[in-house]
């Protein structure tokens, strides 16, 4: 199981993946926005996207859970 957490304070601009999807290492899961920059959050490893903990428009803090890959 891999937990993917936020590296910085950001707004969730776009949720690209869907919970339950099979994802491959490097796939874009979510796109964050911080300081007028888009930051893609990528899958770290392949597997099933067991959980997607954010929704578009959320403000997330550094360390917040974004997704879980099993």
């Amino acid at each position, binding site marked *: 199981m891999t937990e993917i957490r936020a*590296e*910085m*304070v*950001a*707004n969730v601009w776009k949720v690209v993946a869907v919970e339950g999807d099979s994802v491959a290492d490097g796939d874009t899961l979510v796109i964050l*926005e*911080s*300081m*007028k*920059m888009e*930051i893609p959050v990528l899958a770290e490893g392949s597997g099933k996207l067991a959980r997607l903990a954010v929704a578009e428009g959320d*403000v997330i803090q550094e360390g917040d859970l974004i997704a879980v890959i099993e």
Partner: protein
Amino acid sequence: MAGVPDSVLIANRGEIARRVIRTARRLGVRAIAVYSEADAGLPYVAEADEAVSIGPAPAKDSYLNVPAILAAAKQTGARSIHPGYGFLAESADFAQQVIDAGLTWIGPPPDAIDQMGDKIRARNLMQAAGVPVAAGTQDPVQDVDEALRRAETIGYPVMIKAAAGGGGIGMSVALDPEQLRKGFETARSRAERFFASPAILLERYISSARHVEIQILGLADGQVIALGERDCSVQRRHQKVAEETPSPGVSPELRERMFQAAIRAGEAVGYRGAGTVECLVDTQTGDFVFLEMNTRLQVEHPVTEMVTGIDLVEQQFLIADGLAANIPAQSFQPNGCALELRVYAEDPVRFLPSPGTITQWDEPAGPGVRVDAGYAAGNVVTPYYDPLLAKLVTHGATRDEALARAIQAVAGFAIAGLKTNLPFHVDLLNSAQFGSGDYDTSIVSHLRP
């Protein structure tokens, strides 16, 4: 000072709001700040004579919230509005609303903003005025197929740009049709999202170029003058990181040609106030092409102020009120060299945003050192706005002296609590390439491969 409005509302935030307040104070003009909920603790709010809260943190609810800004002006009895840069600075519609409200707009005529705001229109207008432009599209590219057809005529590599864009957002280079397909879609979605316009243009990409821009002033009597160039070739993600004047890559002969073109550009749109004509200089051929015109004060305006002795914000105030500018004759002979380093809240390797709380903030000082900062210790840097924390500017009789002062000043700038790009500036200033002055817009990619 007689003539200038007795009060100004600054429709902006951070370092530029503070910068405008400083000149307003010196001229005896009452300075009114506006701020979002996220910015209530910033120095510019405390330093203004009056400050009005205009809404929640997201820019669309505050710094882009025209009704709230105009209401703040009315409430405080502001007689004029200075837009700074970014946000509403290049909105012809906002400028017109300010004028219609009976206030003095400290910027160019709305029509000049409008004509230069669309990059396709601006390109066509400049070409007609005899200003060199790169080969490119003369109307918006509708879809990928058209883009591919047009690119064949223009010749690869091509630059893909949002016609309504700015700040490098949505820009990309395509070396072949494959990259063009990909870049076109990305550019279009970003253009819609950031600029509410899907119009895209293609331009021949110059593979080795310096980004050189000319500061112009359109005077109240209609005359347009050029006040020197700035070299802004140090960029990451098509955004400027460091600027200098004079440009080490521009000969006196080329400078004169660029000045004349910039003056023609300003005259073509009846420009008034401070503006910047951005050009690309092809390092292979030594020729230049028009890139775009920024119809506002530029972030990097301090380097021009350092070598000319002119306060550009003061000139904006004077010209907006129909007065003669305050420019001594010697300002046209730049005195020495100046360098600006943008201090960003971002990691110095990958340049990713790094919001956070500032626990320490100690600015350098000394001969030839100027710091325009938006923050102080204890402030929170939020993810809502751009990452610019401060501008560190140094001046010297020679480029070497300005550089040596910059190296010392960077070492003396202590910021803790979040990551900044100061370590990048150390690498930049000490690099052989920057030191030689012989660099182009690829310099950052060489320093951070």
